[in-house]
């Protein structure tokens, strides 16, 4: 074989090898690109799924938060209305004429569970109404009501004290207790209607 032929064959083999390498490299490149594309698409799908879930979760959380906030506002408004009604009722009691007002105080004194010398604290507005004479008329052999020098800061009614024991019988306290009791009574009595 002539040298030229040998050189040509080497050149052809080299070309063929180069073409094969290039073609394999192209195929590998295409496979890698496709693999990377597929991976990226999956990642994109996963990330956008997560994002969608997070957005949905945030939306639900926000809605729940708003709903709870609205519930809280309704509850607050309801308690404010009830408290206002109770305050108004207490104010109306305080504005009663002396005779009716003292009848209420008499009923409170009659229910006093304390014995012995019982100190009676009144509010500043009642100084002229609940007097030493009035209290002594309600005293008996078991219990002696004494007008205290101290004053309570609530509205209407009295605070009764014997030694370390005291009974808060102010109108606002009585109204609060009556309200709580009524709520518990009604909750049990009302049928399970929607």
């Amino acid at each position: 074989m002539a040298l030229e032929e040998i050189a040509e064959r080497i050149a052809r083999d080299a070309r063929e090898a180069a073409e094969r390498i290039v073609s394999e490299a192209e195929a590998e490149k295409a496979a890698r690109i496709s693999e990377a594309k597929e991976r990226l698409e999956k990642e994109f799908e996963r990330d956008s799924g997560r994002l969608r879930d997070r957005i949905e979760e945030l939306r639900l959380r926000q809605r729940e938060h708003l709903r709870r906030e609205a519930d809280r506002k309704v509850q607050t408004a309801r308690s404010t209305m009830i408290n206002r009604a109770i305050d108004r009722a207490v104010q109306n009691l305080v504005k009663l004429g002396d005779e009716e007002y003292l009848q209420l105080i008499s009923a409170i004194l009659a229910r006093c569970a304390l014995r012995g010398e019982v100190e009676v604290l009144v509010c500043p507005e009642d100084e002229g109404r609940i007097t030493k004479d009035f209290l002594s008329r309600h005293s008996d052999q078991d219990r002696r009501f004494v007008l205290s020098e101290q004053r309570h800061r609530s509205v209407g009614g009295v605070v009764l004290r014997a030694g370390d024991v005291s009974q808060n019988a102010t109108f606002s306290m009585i109204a609060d207790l009556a309200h709580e009791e009524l709520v518990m009574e009604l909750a049990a009595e009302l049928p399970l209607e929607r």
Partner: protein
Amino acid sequence: MSVDGRFIYPNGRVRALELQLVSNRMWQMLLSADDRAEVIRLLTDTWYSLFIEQHKLGDTFRQAQEATEEELLELSEDPRLVRGLLHRRDVRNARYLWKAALIGTEKDVEVERDGLLETENLRRAVEDEQAREELPELFRQTLERLLDMEAPEVGDVEREMDRLAARVEREELPELGKSFENLVSWNLERKNFLTAARAQLREASPEELEDMLLEGGLHDPEEVASAYRTGRLPELLAGGHGQEELASALSDCLSRGSLLEFEKQGEKELLDKLEEASSHVFGPAPLAAFVLKRELEIDHLRILVAAKSAGAPRKRIIRRLPRG
């Protein structure tokens, strides 16, 4: 003594179901909750979570009651239990429907699942004489009395329906066994004395009270009314039926002007009696006792939720609830 083995399996299952009742520890947490929202959050850790949607109570308690009854009816097909439970549901449905029809509150009243009577029949019976004739006698008589009233008020309807509920209980529940017979009378007695005590605190007339008392307690309504007239309710309650502790609570409560502790003591004793009824494992009593325990639990949860909504402190609530 013959032993009825049909109830061994259902009663065994009921023992397991009792674990779903709110535990003492949970009651402690519920009583200490800061507010209504926290109570609801805590309830989502209990069996009630099955019925709580989006942290709202809504229809939770009614669904819970229905689910309890359905579960027990599936467990045992004993006719005494089925009648006892389903007729009580009929009374509740009749109450919703008839009150709405006669007082005119709502047009579309939601009712529970049918009991022994079809709710459609209960609904039609207000207008349709033939449907009325098809009702069981107790129901028919009640409805006729209601229809005879001129412009009845809510209180009138509730009173008649309370009487019907008491009659149905007296007729159906004693069939579940001796323990239930005693329990029904005792419970009616407790209700009558509670009514009388409330009447006394509100200075109602003896005639008004007589109209509210129910037949079937340990004392006749006349005896209770007579004790009311003479101011001797605690003495009558204490007399001869082993109710000294309840009578003493009544006496204290009347002098204090608050019935919370009388109600608490009465329900504590009721829970004890239900526990006792649960021990009769060869009959349907434990199944019915479980339903009543659940009802009482629901009542207590409703009181708790209402009290928390009103801002009542723990120490006030535990004066009323025999829990925790």
